[in-house]
């Protein structure tokens, strides 16, 4: 009768492989310093927190509550409208590009016909400050929509020879 041999990791006394030694060393470093990334280290911390969860820092909690009560109401609707407006303006600003050089388009004056049109481009230059980890997206959408609405206006003026 043959008995099935237990895998090495199930037997505490089996000599370790080099890979196991390396993994064990990484685990030890992760337990000493949580900044050291290790899946098993994270699991160990999760086990500890599941067994004995610690209370939240009162200052952290106060900040979370303060942020929540400051939040604007009905964010979903505002965000939806802002996205819709920004998308419509971006598409509208791009439409004149299709008529550039089109013979059927109205003839503009010589100077205005050669005036450059605003093309769709990255909105990154509009932001000099780093983005907050959470929130602020409604304000960013508003900023993009304002900037691109002036592009649309100028493109239309250029095509109609107003520049």
């Amino acid at each position, binding site marked *: 009768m043959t008995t099935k041999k237990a895998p090495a*990791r*199930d037997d*505490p006394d089996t000599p*370790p492989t080099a890979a*196991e*030694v390396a*993994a*064990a*060393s990484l*685990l*030890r470093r992760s*337990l000493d310093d949580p900044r050291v990334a290790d*899946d*098993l280290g*994270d*699991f*160990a*911390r*999760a*086990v*500890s*927190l*599941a*067994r*004995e*969860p*610690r*209370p*939240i820092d*009162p200052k*952290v*909690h*106060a900040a*979370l*509550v*303060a*942020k*929540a*009560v*400051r*939040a604007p*109401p*009905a*964010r*979903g609707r505002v965000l939806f409208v802002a996205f819709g407006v920004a998308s419509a303006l971006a598409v509208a600003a791009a439409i004149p590009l299709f008529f550039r050089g089109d013979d059927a388009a109205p003839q503009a004056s010589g100077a205005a016909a050669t005036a450059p049109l605003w093309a769709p481009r990255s909105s990154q230059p509009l932001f000099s400050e780093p983005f907050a980890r*959470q929130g602020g997206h409604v304000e960013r959408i508003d900023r993009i929509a304002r900037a691109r609405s002036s592009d649309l206006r100028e493109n239309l003026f250029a095509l109609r020879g107003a520049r």
Partner: protein
Amino acid sequence: MMLPALADRDPTLERERALVARAQAGDREALGELLRAHGPGLYRSVLLPRLGSQAAAEEALAETYAKVVAKIDRFSWQGAGFYPWLRTVALHVALDQLRRRKRTLVWDTDDVARELDEASSATPVDQQLSDRRDREASRRKVDDGLARINPRYAEAIRLRVLDEQPREEVARALGVTTATFDVLLHRALTALRKALCATEEQQR
């Protein structure tokens, strides 16, 4: 004869009902009071054990609060208090986070999904009772997992991870060198993780 609603007999619940009504009418002070009353327990008993890290639990609590602010007008007072609804919102947030992270922790997505199914009928009105039950369930999960692995592995985890004793002391207590203990602990945690996954498979 109809029994009076629970809120009508319990002054604490009656006060909470008034706070909720004010919060729904846009009173942010009232909303803040509700969150301050319930948030710490929600974090410690529901979010932290399930998400396994302080950062993840804080993020989840912030997200829970954002959802509460957005949806509080949809909450309907049915005499069971505010906390059961709040706990359900938090469990949804925890479930979404676990699905995004896809890592093996003590609780997995199926665990939390099962809790959500039971939440509407099983969450006690009294938050202290609910929190105690949540913490007991979490403790039981860990203890059941430890009971399923090699006793030496379980001891290594209890001493080093749960009791947070120094590595050298634990190695001495177990009669091994520190290098051997490192390997022992690695095997122990691997075995515990496997045991918890196996428990999940059986519950499906």
